[in-house]
């Protein structure tokens, strides 16, 4: 085995730099406002090439989750979770839920963006939001 590695294309680099500053940014389409995840060269909603990097507000909702019971990477000893989060700006992001886990149903729970040092990188994670 070995450690996990991010896929870093030309378009991913600024996102990873924003994560290292603990201010996650994604490309926002200058024409239709759609956010791109993963980052890429064109807006797949309207085909515009123009964009700017914008901060995420940090809010989101858990769409689904899993728990790994077998080891695939040295840096992820099982058991550990992974979640699919619909961030409030639209994209679905696969990440980790850190901190307390929900009692009962996870799907539909509100979460907030957090940052976690992992190996030599800072990556996104999410924590449960306070219940209203």
């Amino acid at each position, binding site marked *: *085995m070995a450690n*996990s590695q991010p896929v870093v294309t030309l378009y991913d680099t600024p996102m990873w730099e924003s994560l290292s500053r603990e201010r996650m940014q994604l490309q926002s389409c200058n024409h239709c406002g759609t956010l791109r995840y993963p980052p890429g060269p064109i807006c797949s909603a309207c085909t515009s090439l123009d964009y700017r990097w914008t901060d995420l507000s940090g809010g989101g909702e858990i*769409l689904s989750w*899993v728990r790994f019971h077998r080891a695939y990477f040295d*840096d992820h000893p099982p058991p550990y979770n992974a979640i699919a989060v619909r961030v409030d700006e639209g994209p679905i992001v696969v990440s980790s839920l850190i901190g307390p886990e929900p009692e009962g149903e996870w*799907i539909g729970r509100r979460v907030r963006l957090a940052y976690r040092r992992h190996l030599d990188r800072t990556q996104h994670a999410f924590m449960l939001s306070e219940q209203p």
Partner: protein
Amino acid sequence: MTGSLSGVASVIGIGQSDWVGDHQRVRAGERPHDSYGYGAQAFLSALTDSGIARDEIDGLIVGPTTAYERVGELLGLNVRWGGQADAMTAVMEACMAIHAGLASVVALVYGNDQRSAQVNYGGPDAQGGGAFLAYVYHAPWGFTSQGALYAMMARRYMHERGLTEAELGEVAVAQRLAASRNPRALMRKPIAIEDYLASPFICEPLHLFDYCLINDGGVALIIAEAGKARRVGRAPVAIKGVGRYDLNRGATSLEPRLLDYYLPAQQAVAAQVFEMASLGPKDMDALQIYDSFSLHIPLALEGYGYCPIGGAGRFMRETGISLAKGLPVNTSGGHLSESYMQGWNHQIEAVRQVRGEAGDHQVEGCRHVHYSSDVAGKAISIIYGA
């Protein structure tokens, strides 16, 4: 129907390597063959089954695990037309080439040494990332393996559609029953729902028994223009319809999986394939569904109209999907219990069923078999018939 691929081509030969014998040898630490060797054995067995001579073949499609030219070189095949494709695309492309007059007899050859070569489908060197970014993009969060992608999909699907763990377990139980009657299957010991529920989680909510096997082997088919097939074929099985629809938008962020469960793709393919074949779900005597994971089965049952949307759990539990009860699905044991030949074993099983040569796992009076796959949101269907 003008321009239709219905009835254009027929399968005149099927073959495979010795999955069971080679699996025992691999488990004992041997490497019996490589991907090319398995493919060669399957090709010879299909050629013998067809009864035609090697020099009648004028088209060649190889599976994604071997190089096109090298397979052609090894098998001594100079051809008019050829390429490389997965199982379902290969069958479709053979029909297209024959319909276009570019070839009249196409050999499809697949070999894979994934077990003995220790191919990984998850982790730092996960296979398939070059073709599907979702297979590798989420690795920093430990989210890897195609099983995890289906586990993520399964969790939400179970939440939204009410499928229970025990209902999903019907897939593994039914396919193991089929495998128990199939001497070519690797895993033949019957299991019950209790065994399924007690089996360990790999990526929760999926259990060990929801996952496909990993084994070495080869499969081959010989597909001929329909007229020629009737003249030379021992028992030609017609390709009555094909259909395809690909969901690519949002694929890496898992949108087509988590929001739609690939349903729009399957519905589009259902309309195409059933119309082309002039048949409907009620005409199908058996289904072969690409089953890298058990979840494919409820998705296909709903997507192709075998049960209402949200009704797959009840259908599997009450109507049944086994050789013993209901609509038989993956009658050889499929990827979960027969052999993980990446959709290729489903094609030859469909042919065996229509020929009536499936032995103890034969579906009585089987006339039409529907094959379906939804790998990574690329939905494809093929209908085989007498």
